[in-house]
C-alpha cells in the first residue's frame, strides 16, 4: 500500500494537493448528509463520488473473495454483475458486466455505500500484505520512476500532470490533473501514450485505471466543441 503517495519528484506541490484533499474531506464530516454523485464512464464502468472519505488510500477488489473484511466491497460484490471495485479516498469506481443501464445498478451501489457508512464500521480495510504485494511494490517503484522520468515531463508540456496513486494486482491506478483533467483528448493520452509506454517498459503491468474526476477539470488543454 502507498497511502497518498504522490509521484516522486512532485514534492511539496504534490503534498500540498494531498493536504488540500484531506482538508476538504475533513470538512465534509461537519455535514453528515451523505452525497453520492454517479458519473458513468461507459456502459461497463461508473465512478461514484461520495461526500465522505471511504479509505485513506486506494484499494482494488477483483473478486468477492478479495472483498472479505471490507464491508463496502462485500456489499458491492453482492450486486448482480459487479466484477471490479476500486475505492480511492471518496471515490468508488465500479465495473460491471454487460452494457445494461447504470440507472438501476447505480441505485443499488448508492444504497450499499450509504448503508455501509451508516453502520459506523470502516467501509474498506487497509490492504493486508499478500503474496503478490511484493510484486506490486516492485512494480510501483518502476512505474513511479517512469512517471518521473518520462510521463510527467511529457504531459507537463500541455500543462498537465499525472499522479501515480497505487499499483494493485499489477493494475496501475492514476489520477490526471492540470491540462489533462477534463481534456477532450485525455483518453487518447491515457491509452495511446501513458498505457502504451507503461506496457512496453513495464510489461508485467496488467492494466491502467484512471480514477480522475474529469468533470472537475477547470483548465483542460483541449475543450470539445461542435466545430
Amino acid at each position, binding site marked *: 500500500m502507498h497511502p497518498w503517495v504522490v509521484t516522486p519528484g512532485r514534492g511539496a506541490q504534490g503534498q500540498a494537493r494531498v493536504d488540500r484533499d484531506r482538508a476538504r474531506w475533513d470538512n465534509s464530516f461537519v455535514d453528515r448528509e451523505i452525497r453520492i454523485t454517479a458519473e458513468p464512464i461507459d456502459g461497463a464502468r461508473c465512478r461514484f463520488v461520495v461526500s465522505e472519505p471511504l479509505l485513506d488510500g486506494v484499494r482494488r477488489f477483483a473478486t468477492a473473495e478479495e472483498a472479505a473484511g471490507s464491508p463496502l466491497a462485500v456489499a458491492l460484490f453482492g450486486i448482480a454483475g459487479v466484477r471490479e471495485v476500486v475505492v480511492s479516498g471518496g471515490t468508488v469506481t465500479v465495473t460491471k458486466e454487460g452494457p445494461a443501464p447504470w*440507472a438501476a445498478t447505480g441505485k443499488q451501489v448508492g444504497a450499499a455505500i450509504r448503508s455501509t457508512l451508516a453502520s459506523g464500521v470502516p467501509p474498506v480495510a487497509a490492504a493486508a500484505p499478500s503474496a503478490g504485494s511484493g510484486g506490486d511494490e516492485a512494480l510501483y517503484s518502476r512505474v513511479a520512476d517512469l512517471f518521473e522520468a518520462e510521463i510527467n515531463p511529457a504531459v507537463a508540456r500541455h500543462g498537465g500532470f499525472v499522479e501515480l496513486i497505487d499499483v494493485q494486482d499489477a493494475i496501475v491506478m492514476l489520477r490526471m490533473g492540470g491540462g489533462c483533467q477534463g481534456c477532450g483528448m485525455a483518453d487518447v493520452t491515457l491509452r495511446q501514450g501513458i498505457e502504451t509506454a507503461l506496457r512496453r517498459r513495464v510489461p508485467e503491468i496488467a492494466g491502467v485505471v484512471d480514477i480522475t474526476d474529469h468533470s472537475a477539470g477547470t483548465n*483542460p488543454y483541449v475543450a470539445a466543441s461542435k466545430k
Partner: protein
Amino acid sequence: MGARARLLLLLPSTTYRAAAFVEAARRLDVDLTVASDRNSVFSGREPEGLATFDFADRGRAVAQAAAFAAEHPVAAVVGVDDDTAILAAAIAEALGRPHNPLAATLAARNKLEQRRALAAARVPVPAFRDHGLDEDPRAVARAAAYPCVLKPLCLSASRGVIRADTAEAFLAAHRTLTTILEAPEVAARGAESRRYLVEAFVPGPEFALEGLLEDGRLVVLALFDKPDPLDGPYFEETIYVTPTRLGEGARRSLADCAARAAAALGLVTGPVHVELRLNDAGPWLIELGARPIGGRCSQVLRFGEGAGAITLEELLLRQALGMRVPSFEREAAAAGVMMIPVPGAGVLRAVRGVDAARAVPGVEDVAITAHRGQRMVPLPSGSQYPGFIFARGASAAGVEGALRRAHACLRFDVAAPGD
C-alpha cells in the same frame, strides 16, 4: 501485414467522441493509431499509436498517412466528423482501402453541392440560392422569398443558421452572419467561409436518422424525434428521442428519402447522419452528413441486448474493419439525449442541481462537459454545449419527460460579460 489489423482513427483534437471511439477500438483485437490535428505529447515516443496529420491540408495529410502506412500497414481508416470523413476517404483511396468516393464525401460536406446533387436527383430539398458576403445584402433580401433561412456553407451544428421572416430581419441576420464568418478562426477556412445559402424555411417537425451504408444500402440504426420545435430564429438542437413516435408509413418515407439522398451523393459505406422534416408535402431532406451523430449523443445508442450489446462506435469500427457486426438492431428500450442549451452568454462559474437531475427516474447520466471558467456562447455563434443529459425507459414519452425534468433541476451560474 501482421496478424493484427491496424485501424487508423482520425480524431480532431476538439471532438467530443475521443473516448467513445478509443474505448471501442480497445474492445476489438486491433492495433490502434490515433491521428489528430495537434501533436500529442507522446507522439514522438509512441509513433505507432499516435500520429499528427495536417487536417487543414488534405494533400499533405494524405502524404503523411501514406508515409505512416508504409511503415505500419493500415487495414481501415475511420473519420468521426464531417471533415475527417473527407480525409478518411482521401487517405483510404490512396492506401487502397475500402472507402466512400472522395467526391461523395466532399458533396456531403458542402451544403451547396449537396443541395445541387439532391435537387438533381429529385430528392426533396428546400428551394435554395447561393450568395456571397460581398454581394449587396439589400438586393439579396429583396429577391428572397419569406420565410427563409440563412445558412453558412462552412459551419456545422446550426452555427450561423438564422431564420428571417422579413427583409429587415434578413438584413439583421446578415449582419450577425457576417460577424460569425469574419471571425479569424472561421475566415481561415478560405473562400468558402464567405458564402451562404438562402433557402426556404420548411415548416414541420424535424427528425434525425442514424444510418449505416453497406454497399450502398441504407441500414436504419435509429430514427430520433426532435420534440422541441425548430422554428427559429436560431435552430438549437436539444432533445433527441428514439424510437420515433411516427407511424410505419411516415418512418418508411423518411428512410426512403434518406436512402435516396445518400445514393444521389454517391455514398456507399459507413455512417450517415440525416436531418429530415416532415409535413403535408412529405419528407424533406435538410442535411446529410457522412458521419455518425455528433456530440456525445451516441451514448444513448446500443445495438443488441444483454451482455453482447455493442456501442455505435464499436459497430462502426467493426464495419470499417470488415468484422462481423453482431447486431444492427437497436435495443428494445426507448432512449434519449438532451444537448443542454447554452443558458446565456458569459463565463460559467458553477452548475448546480446535477445530483438532483441525476436522481430523476429514467435519467442515466448528466455529463457537464463545459468547465468552470469556460466562456459560454449561445447560438447562432456558439460551438460548445454545456453538457448532455441521457435517459432510458420503457417509452419515448417517458424518456422525453425524464430529460425535461432533469434539465429543470439544473441551475447555471454564468457571469455576464464584463462582470
